């Protein structure tokens, strides 16, 4: 590991000030992804700012009926929190489908959002990677400053949507690895951010970005900002939801394709719908216009198929991952079918 200095601020202001200092500093919370990347020299900070003692570790009810998840609450404590289980079971499911119990006990809500892709070429410093080597000017391997090992390499886990830059070139086909972020996208969460110039909020849909010609940027946070909380709106889709995750083994693996669905139903008729896909793009993939196709419709396969087609519109396979296009469409049909049935918990609560 590259040597670094270590600090442990106790208030948010100091933490943000330290990040804005001259050192190549990074925050560390759970550390499960950052330390992993530091061991393979993909991340080489000169300073780690340990933010674990900051007072951002509570889950609080909001006056509007929503819930505020502190950035430093662990994934495990979030998924098992009674209010999250009751009102946002989609989020609990997504979190518990990810990683292992040990990692969920360490990983925090804020850190989960900023974990890096698990693209093998990003992790391997012997391989070219436009995401890792944005400053390099070696034109040896295709488009971009460094090239992309995955484009012509083994790309089973890689992206099929949103990969092209505005000029049609492809610089990076990495996917965002988080399950939690996919559920938060379907729930339309709001991210609370603080920085030297004050506080601001961002819709989860605007937090992560597509690679374009600058795949080195995973997200839109400024270098001197800190996420303090994730706000869940009142609507939690607790009666009709599913997080369907398809992967190469049934536990402790990243998604090949995942689907987060939340529905509101009036009898057999869908009155509101949210869908987000994981494992298919550089960010959780959501298309509100696809969701609109479901409004006022009954929950039947005939009505689901156009939604799947709309969500996968423009999908491109790169060889080993081409199967994901059909897999994602079928996963959407299955997830919508499952979500349209009332959840077991909802049945229990209503004594059915």
């Amino acid at each position, binding site marked *: *590991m*590259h*040597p*670094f*200095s*270590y600090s442990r601020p106790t208030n948010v202001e100091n933490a943000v000030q330290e990040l804005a200092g001259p050192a190549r500093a990074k925050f*560390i919370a*759970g*550390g*499960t992804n950052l*330390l*992993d990347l*530091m*061991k*393979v020299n993909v991340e080489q900070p000169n300073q*780690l700012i*340990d933010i*674990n003692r900051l007072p951002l570790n509570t889950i609080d009810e909001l006056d509007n009926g929503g819930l505020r998840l502190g950035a430093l609450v662990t994934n*495990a404590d979030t998924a*098992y929190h009674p209010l999250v289980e009751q009102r946002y079971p989609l989020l609990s499911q997504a979190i518990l489908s990810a*990683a*292992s*119990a*040990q*990692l969920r*006990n*360490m990983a925090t809500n804020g850190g989960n959002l900023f974990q890096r892709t698990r693209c093998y070429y990003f992790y391997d410093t012997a391989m070219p990677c436009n995401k890792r080597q944005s400053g390099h000017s070696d034109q040896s391997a295709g488009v971009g400053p460094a090239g992309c090992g995955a484009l012509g390499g083994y790309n089973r886990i890689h992206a099929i949507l949103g990969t092209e830059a505005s000029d049609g070139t492809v610089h990076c086909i990495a996917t965002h690895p988080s399950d939690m972020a996919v559920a938060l996208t379907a729930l339309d969460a709001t991210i609370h951010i603080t920085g030297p110039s004050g506080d601001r909020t961002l819709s989860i849909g605007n937090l992560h970005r597509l690679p374009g010609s600058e795949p080195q940027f995973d997200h839109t946070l400024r270098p001197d900002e800190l996420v303090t909380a994730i706000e869940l709106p009142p609507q939690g889709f607790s009666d009709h939801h599913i997080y369907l995750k398809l992967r190469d083994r049934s*536990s*402790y693996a990243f998604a090949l394709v995942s689907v987060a669905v939340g529905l509101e139903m009036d009898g057999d008729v869908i009155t509101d719908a949210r869908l987000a896909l994981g494992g298919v793009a550089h960010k959780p993939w959501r298309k509100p216009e696809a969701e609109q196709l479901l409004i006022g419709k009954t929950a039947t396969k005939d009505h689901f198929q156009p939604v799947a087609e709309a969500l996968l519109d423009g999908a491109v396979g790169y060889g080993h991952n081409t199967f994901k296009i059909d897999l994602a469409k079928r996963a959407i049909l299955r997830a919508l079918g499952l979500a349209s049935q009332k959840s077991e918990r909802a049945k229990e609560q209503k004594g059915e």
Partner: protein
Amino acid sequence: MQTTLPAPTVESAPAMTRPITLTVNGTPYQLNLAPWTTLLDALREYANLTGTKKGCDHGQCGACTVLVNGKRINACLTLAVMHDDHEITTIEGLATDGALHPVQKAFIDHDAFQCGYCTPGQICSAVGMINEGQVRTVADVRELMSGNLCRCGAYPHIVDAICEVMQLDASK
């Protein structure tokens, strides 16, 4: 992956180490550690508690599982300096007054290992899982133990051992 261990004495790297106290199995250990020392390396190389194993060193195998304030974590993916006022329990701390912890005894009774390298992590993970209180079924045991790999493939006996302690019917 190669982990570069810092020099083990303060004298050889005075500027880079800092004094920390790790409380392991109830005993305080005063250590001078470079900040990049993982909790796993601190336990094994500095506190000389080698029961906790280094497998992958990347959080993928679970061999390094220990309990921090009662919760199971991967000791390889956290820095020792982040834990200088936490209660750490390793495999060496589970037995009390010479009597094995029930999970340790069940692992022996069910022959829940072959080579034994993953066993300290499996047992600490099982103890942590029982503390968490989220297990209802045998399927839950398998799911919530998925962070601990056993390359000998002793999984069926590991599940049997845990089920005995939890009084679950392992055949279901």
